[in-house]
């Protein structure tokens, strides 16, 4: 088990290196460089040239590449031109904000998706199954940013217009006066802010998981040991949730790795719409501000998160399915 994990861990090092290389060359092949944001009739060309020398931009590309790799390896992500502070200072809070959102979304995706899938599989070809299949397809085909806007429209804007008892905030992570809240109020406040973005981010994924879960559950349910369990006289609940679910879960675990890049992509849009101060929004801001070091650092972190997520999914897969480990 440990050796399996170590092998996977070692295997991901060249992957990360390749990702770094790709990011570096995409950014350096593109026209324009970090000093472009200072082009201005009031700044003389000498100052720009001096700036380029200071930043090391006048050196040949391969030297810059290795220097950049070296500083990344030491955990030095450079200095953000847009926010005028070191990137390693910006990243932790932003990353934590995104992770909060993603963890809530992932938990929601899996619980909701699995429940729907189980219901569909147990009642195969019934009205419930068909209706749920239709809705799953509908939500699966929906752009997350549009869903986000519709959620804001209905549960935030129209809800306050119509005076609904429950209204959700349409943007930001915290309400005004968050600093003066007690701990309990803070948690509910954060939760209220999180519900709409997490829904927008996760509903499509939940629909996808439900489809997989239905298929995987159907495959298991028709096997002999389930019939044996029923023949023993076990209650249907135990048969489904204890015997069938365990085996049906195995393929679902690998989906965690599959959904991580999709979630990160979605978070770019959802965070932009909900003004959630996370990674996705940071990347968009950095790109529009031509803040090259920040773009490089954030896109690397995003890709790195996916690699780590895949690693976790692989390990989880080995935990739930002992057949994998012995390979």
């Amino acid at each position: 088990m440990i050796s399996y994990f170590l092998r996977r861990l070692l295997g991901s090092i060249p992957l990360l290196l390749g990702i770094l290389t790709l990011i570096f060359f995409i950014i350096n092949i593109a026209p324009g460089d970090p000093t472009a944001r200072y082009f201005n009739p009031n700044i003389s060309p000498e100052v720009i040239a001096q700036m380029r020398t200071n930043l090391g931009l006048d050196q040949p590309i391969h030297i810059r590449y290795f220097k950049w790799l070296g500083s990344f390896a030491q955990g030095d992500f450079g200095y953000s031109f847009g926010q005028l502070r070191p990137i390693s200072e910006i990243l932790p809070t932003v990353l934590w904000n995104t992770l909060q959102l993603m963890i809530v979304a992932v938990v929601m995706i899996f619980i909701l998706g699995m429940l729907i899938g189980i219901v569909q599989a147990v009642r195969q070809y019934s009205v419930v199954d068909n209706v749920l299949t239709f809705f799953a397809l509908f939500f699966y085909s929906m752009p997350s940013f549009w869903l986000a806007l519709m959620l804001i429209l209905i549960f935030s804007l129209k809800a306050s217009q119509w005076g609904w008892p429950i209204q959700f905030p349409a943007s930001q992570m915290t309400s005004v006066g968050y600093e003066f809240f007690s701990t309990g109020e803070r948690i509910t406040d954060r939760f209220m802010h999180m519900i709409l973005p997490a829904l927008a981010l996760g509903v499509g994924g939940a629909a996808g998981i439900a489809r997989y879960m239905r298929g995987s559950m159907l495959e298991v349910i028709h096997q002999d040991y389930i019939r044996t369990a029923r023949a023993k006289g076990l209650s249907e609940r135990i048969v489904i949730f204890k015997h069938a679910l365990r085996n049906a879960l195995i393929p679902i675990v690998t989906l965690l790795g599959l959904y991580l890049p999709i979630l990160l992509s979605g978070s770019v849009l959802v965070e932009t719409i909900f003004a959630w101060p996370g990674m996705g929004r940071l990347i968009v801001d950095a790109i529009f501000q031509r803040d090259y070091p920040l773009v490089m650092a954030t896109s690397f972190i995003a890709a790195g998160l996916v690699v780590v997520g895949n690693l976790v999914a692989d390990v989880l897969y080995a935990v739930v399915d002992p057949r994998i480990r012995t390979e």
Partner: protein
Amino acid sequence: MVHSSGDVEFAVPEPVSAPLPAAGVVTRAPVTPAQYILSALLPGSAQIARGEWVGGMLLAFSWAIMLSVTFLARGRIAGVFTAGRMPIDGLVAVVTLVLSLVTIWGWAMYDLKVRARRPRRRFGDSQWTIAARQFRRNKLAIAGLVVMIVLYLMTLLTPLLAPYDPTAQGDIVLTRYLSPSFQHLMGTDKFGRDIFSRVLYGARISLSIGFIAVGLGVVLGALIGSVAGYFGKWTDTVLMRFTDMMLSFPRVILLIVIIALFEPTIWLVVTVLGLTGWMSVARIVRGEVLTLREREFVQAAKVLGMSDARIIWRHIIPNTLAPVIVYATLGIGNTILVEASLSFLGLGVQPPTPSWGNMINDGRDSLITAWWISTFPGLAIVLTVVAFNLLGDGLRDALDPRLRT
């Protein structure tokens, strides 16, 4: 079967199966001249008269729809020919209209003349005929196919269908933020532009981008996957590691980084969407090729001295097509979603050219006063993607029962 003897009553005798009809002889009633005349007057009516309801109704309906489009757009069709400079998209639309009318009419006649006489084939199936039969049974997939065909027809016919010019700004006081009505089916936006016309024109952009980008991705993926799988060894390692690397990037993040660094034009968006959409195809094709490589017909081709390029192109790629077609169909829907997200962020199709994504973005500021601006383009996206997903699922079930989830 185990029959318990004794007190059980006499076992029900096995039903004697009627002799199967001999292969390929299900004769149909001959076509009368009256039916030919009926069909020439109204395509599909002869089929209905012969009792072939489904085909006849479909033909009659599509004929009716096309004729009514021609009738409603008659002013504009004339306009295409009388305009000083002949507008190219108007011409394309007219040609499409004429072609589809001729096709429907011709198909109805062909159906009567040839297919009705030809005895229905019962036996002797290739992989594709089995798949086609499976597919035809799946009503949802057929619905997806119909919606897809209608959508593509609409993109070609847009200049004749759209009630207003999609970029024409109306009177700033009188026609802005009008709610949906019979004049403006989906309302107007803050510049007084008709949303319905813009949704129709946006369909062109979204559908063509989806189609071209997926085509590019599929070709690239099939190439990389087959080369990796066929040659194996270090070629395989290098290419598949590269694929893994590309898969590790969240797609939207990679796209916005590349597009924002260059100038966002439609062609750049299409190219980059294609270049970031090949990885899954490469993996699927590689997996198929790995098993195909060991099969006898490939070994035989090698022994016969065929070149690697020929073996890959003529013998291996055709056999990997089934899963690739499925992926491509599902991929078009997904690509339309991604393109919409890019346009939404302002990195895809640039205004004033309408695309579903940037129209949704237009409506963001006035969500509460004018909900229709964002809602209808979004519904258009959902409808399109649902159609492609239904079609893709149907194709998957038909082409490869193993893949069924």
